[in-house]
């Protein structure tokens, strides 16, 4: 589904997701506690981990709607870089 590193980076930004509960593509990141400043930090962390740079034009509040959408955006960048 997604690179394990993605979930590793993402989880610390989701205070309401218990460690023993699975993260699904439909999981709403906001419901799990991602706030707007957390979003900024998370993007930085993903860029650092994967060595990519998000194109801001392509970002929208929707990009952070759930884990699946965010992974798709990241995966897209990774494919372009490859």
């Amino acid at each position, binding site marked *: 589904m997604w690179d394990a590193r993605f979930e590793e980076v993402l989880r610390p930004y989701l205070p*309401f997701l218990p460690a023993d509960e699975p993260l699904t593509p439909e999981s709403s990141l*906001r*419901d799990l506690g991602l706030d*707007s*400043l957390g*979003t*900024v930090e998370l*993007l930085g962390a993903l860029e650092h981990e994967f060595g990519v740079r998000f194109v*801001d*034009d392509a*970002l*929208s*509040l*929707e990009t952070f709607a759930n884990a699946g959408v965010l992974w798709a955006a990241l995966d897209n960048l990774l494919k372009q870089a490859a």
Partner: protein
Amino acid sequence: MEEELASAYDAARAVLPVLEDQAADTDRSAEFPVKAVDALRAAGLMGLLVPVEHGGSGGDLGDLVAIAGLFGSRCVSTALIWAMHCQQVDCVVRFGGERLRAGLLPRIAAGEVYLASVTTEAGKGGHLLSGDAALVGDGDQLRIDRQAPIVTGGGHAEGFLVTMRESPDADDHRVTLCYAERDQLTLETTGEWDPLGMRGTASAGMRLRGAVPPHQVVGEPGGFRAVAVESMIPAGHLGWSAVWLGAARRVLSDVLGMVRARGAEKVSDLTADRLARARIDVELVASYLASVRDEVLAHRRAGTSLAGMPTQIHLNNLKVAASELTFRAVDGLMQVAGLAKGYLRDSPIPVERVFRDLRSAALNYGNDRLTTMTGALALLDRDVTFAPAGLL
């Protein structure tokens, strides 16, 4: 322009003297401007944003801006009451289910329903996207019991759009917006309304208790965020900014008239500078309002979301800039008008009243909440996309 819309503009111009005539008394009494709002109801203006097929004028947010600005030039309280009503109507038009729309919109257009807004809550303050009091399912009804510390026109509204936590065990940012009829609720007024300005909005606190059927939920249960992003926030920031701009422009115009009436007396460089500064402030707000209005209208015409970072930033900046610059302009103009014409309540020009009214603008959805959010969003738009995007 469609016939319905053209006649709405005619009607708006025709009610201006009614708004003007009651503005000073409304301010003094801090009572809801019943006469002015009745005139808006009778003129069909409560239905500006209601689609023509439901009996309204079929206006868009550009029409809201134009007419809110006209009203703001006459009575800031009445103008804000009306703009906020239209903001609520936009939410119902865009996010109400078929049954709610068919039942409610024609009554709004007929002037029978003035919609008040209940988003602020005691514990969470102004924070729009969270809720404390929860909807409680009870058979086929949703029960409401909610404190609302500030409800514009709450004593006179026939309907309320209320934000509630989705359910007793939902997280506090799972917020549901629902429509409640006055007669579905038991209303209690809590506290007095004796503010510095915007006195006619009669925004005393209330406790609302009652129950509504599920089809009165606007948007998805727990999904108020989408309603806020696509409708309530853009309609609010555009409409309020237009009201404040109309008010500041009126004061500038009156002060210019006053200075001109001094006749042959030389206009000092200091006065000229102060007039220029006020002019710059209102021009900046006007241009930015036009840009952001066009950005929102373009998205709506294309059917695209307003959730993009630049659009979110622009909508926040509009509200913050309009609230600060229009107030600053009127503050400076008070200095030009001087004690007798500027500072006194019985001056022939309403500098003092508008000054008090516009001081509320930075608090009416707190600018601090917006700038802290905008700062975070700005970090997600390193390209610094302008409104309009193609400028540079």
